[in-house]
């Protein structure tokens, strides 16, 4: 099966608001597919529909070949999910949570023990398996949830903002697991995130979402490529002379002077740097500093949506739920 997930004109509206607007995506089997966008872009809504929690307003989608509305139960069997918010029972131990999950998904009793031990090993929680979840740290819970999502051998694992609210070391740790998963398991991962670096480091392909629509879909290197290359910023004693020289001798047309530095946009910054240095030396221009800036996904996002990813992280439903929850505690 080439496409493990396919959506056709998938739409979810709340009144006039279109949370997801006529989405057409195909996720290939075995890839890590990133859905990137600011809060409120509709990423979680897409995941919720693919996980059969929400029914689409119009359009269709299939997961593992099953229709998300007509064959909801078969879809549920094919997928594992790690939600944005914790979904473990903190009055049970790690192991008990995993047994509960195995039973819910009909894992044969004879296999449960082996699978659970294997998963605990994968997420390095063997020594804490018999402790109550309430004694776990946020990162440990996350790891347990990722492990839990794998017990029933799903075809697709959905990770909704897997590292939100975690410290940098834990994020690193979890990224490591996700990459390992891709190597060791026969599984497709769909990941949502609003962290640029996360999408960049993990995904084989990224769909940038904004206002319920896919703005662009491509591999991280290709997305960066669309920005037409790197920026080399040079500070020198004779900037205008250097500026003329790079155009005349090296053919670099795109350039501007920002804060006393000459910024040259080139396809391949690493290759251009020594040539610029050489040119400057030959013409007796003293170079004070030279910096290479490779475009990141932040630039890509900015390029396609016209704004940075965090500036528009307006209110979303989860925000309210989170506040209410704190009030109750």
């Amino acid at each position: 099966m080439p496409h493990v997930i396919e959506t056709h004109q998938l739409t979810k509206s709340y009144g006039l608001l279109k949370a997801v607007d006529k989405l057409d995506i195909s996720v290939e089997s075995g890839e890590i597919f990133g859905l990137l966008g600011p809060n409120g872009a509709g990423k979680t809504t897409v995941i919720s529909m693919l996980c059969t929690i929400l029914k689409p307003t119009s359009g269709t989608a299939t997961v593992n070949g099953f229709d998300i509305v007509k064959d909801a139960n078969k879809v549920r069997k094919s997928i594992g999910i790690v939600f944005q918010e914790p979904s473990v029972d903190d009055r049970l131990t790690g192991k008990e949570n995993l047994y509960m999950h195995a039973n819910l998904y009909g894992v044969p009793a004879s296999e449960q023990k082996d699978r659970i031990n294997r998963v605990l090993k994968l997420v390095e929680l063997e020594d804490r398996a018999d402790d109550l979840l309430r004694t776990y740290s946020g990162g440990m819970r996350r790891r347990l949830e990722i492990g839990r999502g794998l017990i029933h051998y799903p075809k697709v694992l959905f990770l909704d903002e897997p590292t939100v609210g975690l410290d940098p070391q834990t994020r690193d740790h979890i990224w490591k697991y996700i990459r390992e998963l891709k190597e060791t398991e026969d599984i497709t991962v769909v990941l949502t995130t609003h962290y640029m670096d996360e999408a960049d480091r993990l995904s084989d392909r990224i769909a940038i979402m904004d206002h319920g629509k896919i703005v662009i879909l491509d591999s991280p290197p290709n997305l960066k490529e669309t920005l037409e290359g790197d920026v080399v910023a040079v500070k020198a004693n004779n900037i205008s002379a250097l500026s003329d020289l790079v155009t005349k001798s090296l053919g670099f047309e795109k350039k501007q002077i920002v804060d006393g530095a000459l910024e040259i946009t080139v396809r391949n910054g690493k290759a251009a740097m020594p040539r610029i240095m050489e040119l400057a030396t030959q013409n007796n221009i003293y170079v004070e500093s030279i910096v290479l800036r490779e475009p990141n996904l932040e630039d890509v996002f900015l390029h396609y949506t016209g704004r940075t990813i965090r500036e528009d992280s307006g209110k979303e439903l989860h925000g309210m739920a989170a506040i209410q929850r704190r009030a109750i505690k």
Partner: protein
Amino acid sequence: MFIQPLLWLVIFGAGFGLRFTIPGLSYQQVIFPGIVGQTLLFTSMFMGISVLWDKEFGFMKEILVSPVSRFTIFLGKMVGDSTSSFLQGIMVFVIGIAIGISIDPITVIYALPIMVLITFGLVSIGLTIASLIGTLESFGAIQTFINLPLFFLSGALFPLKGPGISLPSWLTTVAAWNPLTYGVDALRNVILGTAWTPALQIQPLWIDIGIVALFDVIMMAIGTWAFGRMK
């Protein structure tokens, strides 16, 4: 939860018993099955809160995306919550016997299956409301709004019919549509035995049980539907 039935049985029972005349029965004996019913009602309705907690802590999501039918999820929730409610009901028996209400302890055995039947339906109401309402605040308000009318109009505190008893017809009509009326009547049938004469009975025991069982089935169907809508 010990205190409430105790207060009803001791204080309310003593005060209102002054003017109560049913031959062969004390007022405390008559309201005792009613207080068992009341305890089942209040605790069962309250158990609906477990749905809200599961939602609040996100655990419900894990259940709802699993390949388990909505009916199974509802059934699991119902049986689990009914157990706690049922145990509370048994505590009322312990209290009743401890404070010296003359009830034959053997009747507890007959009362238990009836209590289970009553609990299933009532827990289903609580679960249905909780899954439709979705927030703790509204659940609390609606729960009170349902609890008290069901309780006061069930005949838990006074016989609804019998020699010399004339109640306003609107009250008996409403009570006739209240499922708890039949639950309490069934409990009285088994706990009070022959002293609860056909003249006092709302319905014979088997009809009481039939109505309660029918109510359970209807509520479970509604509850499954409500769980199917839950997100």
